[in-house]
């Protein structure tokens, strides 16, 4: 049986490197279904990733794929998009890659509201390097670099990106496959910077250290902790502790998109420059 997503999959490169129970494959498949539904073309679609478990997704995707350097996927994607505004450019990144080492590029891309789509796989841990803490790890979480429990508070990446200027912000989980697919699809279609946080289970590196080394149970837990934006609106901060607020959290289709503004400005400059004779006559 062949799956429809195989059209955009390098099946000859499988099996993938992800551990059993990892949620990265679920998010990658959701992205591929969204790409198929939107009719994205290989010639004009580029997936850019950084370094880390989630960023390895670009190895298996049969589109234009750039596996760049740690933390810099958004910066590379910015260059691609500016050079080829007609391309659809998607960034696949993780919580370490996108929110720690690459945090500065993330907020600046939000501020510019450049038409990129960033899907950030959030598993709260550095999996590839063996289980170190990430900036999205909850207080009390255990990692090789927080062996006695983490003391720092985590980022709420959706609040962060909205505040920084992203015009589309959403959160889904690997436990809600169809919703995630819809969110990614809407994000790609959105004209402006779209940020989608995908909460994924990491049973091997996170789970084993935090008493949840069971993939189905971790997915179940994501589902039970999830709450819609509408329901969350009525709850206090205390009541929301430990909950995962999912769905489209912010959407503004009227915010000026960077490339459109840039191109209009460049056209005006070019017109002015091509009429120096008229200028001299003045």
């Amino acid at each position, binding site marked *: 049986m062949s799956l429809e997503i195989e059209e955009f999959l*390098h099946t000859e*490169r499988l099996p993938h490197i992800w551990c059993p129970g990892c949620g990265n494959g679920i998010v990658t498949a959701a992205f591929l279904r969204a790409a198929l539904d939107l009719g994205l073309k*290989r*010639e*004009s679609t*580029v997936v*850019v990733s950084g370094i880390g478990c989630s960023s390895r997704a*670009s*190895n298996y995707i*049969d*589109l*234009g*794929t*750039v*596996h*760049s*350097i740690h933390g*810099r996927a958004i*910066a*590379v*994607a*910015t*260059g*691609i*998009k*500016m*050079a*080829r505004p007609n*391309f659809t450019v998607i960034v696949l990144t993780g919580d370490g890659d996108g929110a720690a080492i690459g945090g*500065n*590029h993330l907020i*600046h891309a939000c501020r510019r509201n450049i038409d990129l789509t960033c899907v950030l796989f959030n598993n709260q841990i550095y999996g590839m390097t063996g289980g170190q803490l990430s900036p999205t790890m909850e207080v009390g979480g255990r990692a090789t670099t927080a062996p006695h429990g983490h003391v720092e508070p985590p980022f709420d990446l959706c609040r962060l990106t909205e505040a920084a200027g992203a015009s589309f912000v959403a959160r889904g989980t690997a436990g809600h496959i169809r919703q995630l697919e819809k969110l990614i699809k809407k994000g790609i279609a959105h004209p402006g910077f779209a940020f989608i946080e995908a909460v994924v289970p990491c049973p091997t590196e996170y789970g084993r250290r935090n008493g949840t080394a069971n993939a189905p149970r971790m997915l179940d837990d994501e589902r039970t902790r999830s709450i819609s934006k509408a329901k969350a609106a009525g709850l206090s901060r205390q009541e929301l502790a430990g909950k995962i607020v999912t769905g489209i959290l912010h959407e503004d289709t009227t915010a000026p998109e960077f490339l459109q503004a*840039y*191109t209009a*400005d*460049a*056209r005006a*400059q*070019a*017109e*002015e*420059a*091509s009429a*120096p004779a008229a200028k001299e006559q003045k």
Partner: protein
Amino acid sequence: MLNCPMHMDQWHSHLLGERVDQSSLVIQGNRACALGALDAGVRFFAGYPISPSSEIMEAMADRLPAAGGVFIQMEDEIASICACIGAALTGELAMTATSGPGFSLMQEALGYAIMVETPLLIVNVMRVGPSTGRPTAPSQGDVMQARWGTHGDHPAIVLAASNVADMYRLTMAAVRFAQRFRTPVILLADQLVGQMRESFSPELIGRYRLTSGDFDFTPGYIHPDLAREVHRPHVLGSGSHPHVTGLFHDDTGFPTNDPEKSDSFLRELYNKVAHHRNELCLYDVKNEGKGRVCIVAYGSCARTARAAWKLADQEGLPVEVLHLYTLFPLPVEIIQQVARRVEFMLIPELNLGQYAHEVRKMAEQWTTVIGMGKIDGTLFTPREILDRIAELIGKYESV
């Protein structure tokens, strides 16, 4: 991208902000660099402000959008070089400009660009370092960083500009080399060369303009004589859908851990520059074959060296000057050729002997290599160099 809306005659007037139908004009080195880049076809610039290089970025911000290109000020130098790499992966000619601290930040991405064989121009207008150092004083302290700054064994093409005209023509040469060898090229300037103004002949513009007959600008084009060493021309959107990775990869573009493939991949990457050394090494010899002492110099020190040679000529000292425009790949043949015929090689540098050490390795079996270093943010005077030469010759004769 937009097409250039202007004719070339309007073009230079527009770029320079003044008419170009004069016999010569006075412009700043950094602006000459921007002009050279635009003439060479650079249509993408991403940068971050830093003294003493910011005028390159300012000129690009002013002129590039109207020229149908893209200018963007990024959030830091890492983002700047990464955006350039992204644009270059689509086939655009991209560049960035910076100074020491920013150049340090770019090193990791520079290695990525080498690894994925992406053409790119990086201009480093050197200041005195390390650290913040003295941002508005000249230095040549980044020579070895330009060669070995990024980790791992890698090829490097490094050019050095000594005056305003060089900032124009070496920028063009650097772009040409980057395209031909599909690798980043580093152009070193220093605060003096970048920020001073001197006369610049518009004739140069015609003489050094690269035409389509001169070079093939087709994205992803690989010259037949480089076909073996260049692996994959990654051009996003060219009909193929490549995978680009900084991991060791094979000819398919996908990662490999195979020892044999890893070895041949890196060796071929290295050799594509090493095997074309003669084509890449630009130099100039003054008073060829007539000196007992040869001053080997590059960048702003080459200006002093030329002045010292003229003074030596008046005073009857036998001096020749080897002016190097290409620092890496090492100009082994020319250095050894000169080393065989002179008694001393004197290398004045605005650092503590970074390049003298390289020359010593190549030349010490034939001649005595003497370094002369200065790190106080000032230049050598011709007299200082001449005094040292007189001292060397005197010492030699008294033995």
